[in-house]
């Protein structure tokens, strides 16, 4: 019974940490906007904990450049399992309009595994909420696999 409750809780309490990996801010601000009254992702139990050690979800925006890719990796590694990564925006997905710039690695999945891709430049907050919901699903599946 306790196991079940933990299982259920996992889906109901995704704490997030947001890392701006070289975004133009468009996506960051939309991610932040999800926390604010109109969208209020706390309805789903999401709390912006700001600390990878507490987080279940890593929300990454931006095109990933050669400097912050190290930080991205480290933050990901510091998150305890089970965890999921949501890549937000064209930049996070592929490097977007900056793909060819010299300092851009291009796409978060080149550095860490990504579970959910959220399209848009920037995605609407609704899309980000969809992404979170999707992440919760993948994340349940992951926990089941691990068990």
């Amino acid at each position, binding site marked *: 019974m306790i196991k079940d409750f933990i299982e259920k809780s996992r889906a109901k309490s995704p704490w997030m940490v947001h890392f701006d990996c070289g975004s133009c801010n468009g996506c960051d601000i939309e991610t932040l906007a999800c926390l604010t*009254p*109109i*969208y*209020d992702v706390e*309805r789903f139990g999401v709390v912006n904990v700001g600390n990878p050690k507490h987080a279940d979800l890593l929300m990454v925006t931006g095109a990933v450049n050669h400097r912050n890719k190290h930080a991205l990796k480290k933050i990901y590694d510091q998150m305890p399992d089970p965890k999921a990564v*949501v890549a937000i925006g*064209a930049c996070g*997905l*592929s*490097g*977007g*309009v900056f*793909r*060819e710039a010299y300092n851009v690695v291009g*796409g978060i*999945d080149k550095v860490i595994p990504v*579970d*959910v*891709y*959220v*399209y*848009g*430049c920037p*995605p*609407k907050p*609704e*899309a980000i*909420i*969809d*992404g979170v*919901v*999707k992440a919760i699903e*993948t994340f349940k599946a992951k926990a089941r696999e691990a068990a």
Partner: protein
Amino acid sequence: MMFMTPHILKNLFQKSATRMYPLEQREPFERARGELAITVEDCIFCGACARKCPSQCITVDKKTATWTLDPMACICCGICVTACPKNCLQQELVYRRPCTEREQISRQGEIRRRPRKVKPADEEKKAA
């Protein structure tokens, strides 16, 4: 402290400002620049969209009549839509839903051998 208190108390006793997405969904705005869609039947594979696209995320292969979009790189600017001489591109009102796998969108049209005589799209434009 005194200044904010009436404000938050008002919030408490009002309905919350939250839009209960996804339970409640708002009508999208008319101009919303959502997912890019192609009516591939009308496409003449001229490549204008591919050339104009600031993100260079469309590839058009005239020979095989394929129109390919890398949605992951599309920045939803709508430049291609304006550029298309055939008006066969359009941005839907809703955005593309998040996914869990990388994907490419490839549309196969029919390979036209002869150059067309009539340009229906152009005519429409003139009429308008």
